């Protein structure tokens, strides 16, 4: 199943909330949607969820436009909003039962599916509780459970980890991984980049409504981050090693922490390779040479300016 976002635009008067955004993702991928506040993440997700209409552009699932056929999109996409609507007078089980009925599930199948989902999202003990009385994390579980009821192949989650405690975040991460392994295509937005980094297979970065970067984290890293940090350990400490290494081509800075040296290398993997060759050629006893993986935060800071639409 392939989701294609093609030239999507959403304008509110003069404000361009989403401005000509195009990317695609597919089954068994978890794509992180990141960007500063006001970048257009929620608007984009609302369009995907058929809650909003684009000013221009299209969203296609396996070639079918969900802008033209929102009814079809609703069968294929499960949407988890950033907050659950405030229901004062309905219990968790009743809420899920209603959505199961609305999705066309009948009889025993409906009961089994609701029970199965409640078990899967660990809501069994909360099923008789009023939704209004639930904590943020619990509500988020209910929201995920609701989105899973019709077993959609695509999941769109808007800030699912916001306001969750560390344990709930880990649980959510594991849940999304499990769903991804089951063959779902997942688009998830979050401000908690370290958290996101641990589960995503690709990232889409928005700023001021425009797509800044899209691709695998490694791919963007190679494109966007202009230097590498290398961990270097020598067999024995050498006098003046830091000074000598600092003078090598491409090396910007060298710092020391106990037996480890950290080198800031200007350029990408090729330049790191050249530095290693030079170290060996100059007779440095290298026992460890490791390029530290750049964090999503690093990528984010490198490609965004912090401006809003």
């Amino acid at each position: 199943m392939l989701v294609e976002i093609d030239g999507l635009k959403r304008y509110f008067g003069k404000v361009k909330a989403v401005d000509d955004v195009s990317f695609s993702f597919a089954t068994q991928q978890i794509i992180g949607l990141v960007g500063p506040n006001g970048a257009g993440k929620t608007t984009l997700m609302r369009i995907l969820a058929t809650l909003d209409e684009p000013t221009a552009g299209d969203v296609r699932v396996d070639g079918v436009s969900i802008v033209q056929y929102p009814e079809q999109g609703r069968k294929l996409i499960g949407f988890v909003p950033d907050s659950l609507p405030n229901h004062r007078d309905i219990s968790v089980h009743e809420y899920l039962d209603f959505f199961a009925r609305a999705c066309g599930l009948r009889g025993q199948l409906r009961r089994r599916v609701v029970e199965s989902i409640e078990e899967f999202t660990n809501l069994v003990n909360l099923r008789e509780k009023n939704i209004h009385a639930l904590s943020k994390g619990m509500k988020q579980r209910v929201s995920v459970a609701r989105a899973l009821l019709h077993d959609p192949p695509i999941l769109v989650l808007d800030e699912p980890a916001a306001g969750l405690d560390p344990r709930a975040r880990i649980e959510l991460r594991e849940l999304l991984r499990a769903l991804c392994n089951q063959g779902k295509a997942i688009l998830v937005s979050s401000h908690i980049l370290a958290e996101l980094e641990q589960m995503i297979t690709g990232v889409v970065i928005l700023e001021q409504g425009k797509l800044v970067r899209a691709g695998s984290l490694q791919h963007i890293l190679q494109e966007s981050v202009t230097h590498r940090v290398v961990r270097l350990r020598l067999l024995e400490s050498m006098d003046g090693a830091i000074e000598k290494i600092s003078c090598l081509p491409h090396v910007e800075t060298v710092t020391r922490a106990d037996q480890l040296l950290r080198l800031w290398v200007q350029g990408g993997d090729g330049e790191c390779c050249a530095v290693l060759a030079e170290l060996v050629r100059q007779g440095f006893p290298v026992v460890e040479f490791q390029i530290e993986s750049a964090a999503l935060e690093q990528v984010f800071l490198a490609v965004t300016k912090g401006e809003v639409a």
Partner: protein
Amino acid sequence: MSSAPATLQLAHAGRPRSFLRRLGEWLADWPNPIVVKELRQAVRGWTALVMFLLYLVVQLVVVGIMLMSVAEQVWSESPVGTEVFLAVQIQLAVTLVGLLPLYAGARLFLERSDVNLDLMFITPLRPVWLVLGKLLAAAVLGLLFFSASAPVMTMAYFLRGLDLLYAGILLGLDVLAMMTAVQAALFVAAIPAPRAVAVLLGVGLIFGLIFGVGMLASGSVAMFTAVAPEIVIGISSWVALTLVAGFVLLFTATHALLSPPPSNRLMPFKIMLLAVPVVYWIVAGALLELFSRLFGPHVPPVDIDEYLMLVHFAERTLTLAGWLAWGIAVSERLDWNRRVLAQLPRSRWLRVLAFPFYTGAANGLMLALVLTGFSWLMRRSLGIWFSWSGSISRPFYSDIHGTWSEWEYSAFLADGYVIAYALTALTLRRYLEWQRGKSVPGWILLLLEVGLIAFASLLLAVVLALLRVPEPMLTYAFVLTPYPLFEALGIDVLFRHERWDVYFSSTVVVLTWLAIVGTVTFFWFGKQVRRFVPPPKASSSRTPAAASATNPNDREPTLASLANTTALAGHASQGPDNLPG
């Protein structure tokens, strides 16, 4: 979620089930999901509960006081059943036509609000089920109030004097009024409007409901004081017919508002806009025939004035529908999206018939034309019908059967105004969109046009006043509106042949106006008609049916698809140009 199972199994093979078990499951599944949800929430929430308890308390107090005041009559075996029944009836009117619609409308409004949008609107649940569910849930609550009143009504019967026929008619009207009022509230709640406009609409709804309660309550009292049963039956029939017509129109309008914008969502409403007045008129005519045979031709239900009023009403209803079509023509987008075009009939003749019922400004205009044409046709056919039927003695029959009556002329002119207004709005729209480079909301256009015409009329009035023209001549200041026409015709059905000057001036204005805007719009309209064709069959765009036949596994999920996407961004301007309506 840490204890979550590694896989989520949603479908299970169940054991074979007995017939009774399957029947039980079917019964549990049968109700509309919205009804189940609404009733569960009504039971858990406090609003419906408080409303019901309050109703019981008020009923107890009112009936208690009433019984005490008529105690002497009760003991002397004088009939007081009607008074007690009316007390309950008025309370029912307030609850069913006032409070219950407000409750149902408020719930839908809150569910539709942007800040707290209920996700049920993005479920696969069809819009018709949404509207029906809300309606049925309100009907069940209404039934609760009826059942709470049943003991007192029974008691009223035993207190003697209560006419069961009248009581039955009244309870039937209660149900119809409740359903129409609830539907009106749901319609108002479903209108996507900014908060300030929504408040105004809410206030308007409240006033409308108060009016409805007043009409039902006063009508109930009048019914029991009426002398002739044929009057009661006649008036009740017109009221019931009007309520049903209003309900059907409001239902289809609400359904359209809740349907996805890219779909041809106005089609059912447009069909009903045409069908309801026609069916209304046919049923009303048939009822008149029936009453004339049952009660005789000169008794009130088939009184000649009422008969003429019906003709008048039928014309005015269709003209009103024409004005609604003006609103549709203004609100619709100029072009069709891919989805609508894909649904067009392939046969040219079917497309001709379908044209007024599809979305699009040109189609809305066509609907206005069809409706105004029907208003003339209806009058003609009415004349033919009653010339064939000899059951009613009609001294004014010749007027209806005549070739060119004043009514017909006024209806013709009113229709001319409808078309002129619609064409002007479209001309304005095309000009503004050309100037601004983007679409203009329909309600802004409507306000702009009404504002321009009002301004021109006021200006003309000032000029006429400065010229010190005689007072009756001031009517000409409003010649850009149908006001002088209605003023000349009067609100009753009297003929005023002395106002031909008004008809003449209106005719000149309407024909000139139509000639100007018709010329400006003619080529655009022709272009739209030519563009109203379905896309070729071998289209590159895929339909949902084609997609479902595709094996998802045919596409290997690789990051390459994501990595290649930046290339897509460069071609964004080549994206789809037909946008949802």
